[in-house]
């Protein structure tokens, strides 16, 4: 019984120590696919003959199209009505 307790204690401490052994900034080790942040694109300083500017435009247009396709049934007119209805209901309370 004593041996079992010792083994359990050793395993628990080993597990705790190994879980605590992190690198200084774990976020640097994570590679997540991120969408392009097209709102940060500065159109005023863009030279449309520059391959970098053309590539960025292509990427952002492709992303905008993909976003549109991902939400085909979204009717903004209905959304406004729903919002108004919700507001009215809240007023009733």
């Amino acid at each position, binding site marked *: 019984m004593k041996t079992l307790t010792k083994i359990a204690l050793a395993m628990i401490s080993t597990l705790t120590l190994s879980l605590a052994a992190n690198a200084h900034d774990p976020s*640097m080790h994570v590679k997540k696919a991120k969408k392009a*942040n097209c709102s*940060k*694109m500065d159109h005023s300083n863009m030279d449309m003959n520059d391959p*970098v500017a*053309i*590539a*960025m435009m292509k990427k952002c247009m492709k*992303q905008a199209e993909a976003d549109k396709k991902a939400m085909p049934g979204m009717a903004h007119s209905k959304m406004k009505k729903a919002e108004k209805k919700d507001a009215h209901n809240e007023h009733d309370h």
Partner: protein
Amino acid sequence: MKIVKLILLLAVLGIGGGATVMYSGIINVAADEPHSDLVYWLLAETRENSIKIAAQNIEVPDLSDPELLLTGGADYEFMCATCHLKPGQSESDMSLGLYPAPPNLAVSNDNHKDHEHGDAKQAAGQSFWVIKHGIKASGMPAWGKTHDDQRIWAMVAFIKRLPKLTPEQYQILTAID
């Protein structure tokens, strides 16, 4: 006859000396213990001249197609940026821990003048060769084993533009659709 004996003696001494160094463990291979200036220079010169000679006959294609920046950008972010950094970043675990330190490709060649890069075509050819074949005992893998030439040229096109990119431009070009 005397000369033959002398050559044999020198050969035996050379092999014996080499074996002693090899098996005694006297050479420190730790990456956090830098080479002496002389050894560093010998290795760097050997490496740079090897790359220069190997890449001299590589035909560099047109790298101005914007599409190359998108393909190359995504690959750079996932395969290279951890060691070779990106705009707005000055160090990473890998850039600090590897020896020899991987060059920071987010800064212009003028900022790391420890070796010659040649003109733009030569530099592109050399980048292609290094990405495709890797460099022995340096941490640089041979990406040619898993990536075709077209994809490697796209990375070269992106690396060429990298020093002039802002962090915002980098984020857009390297993001995944």
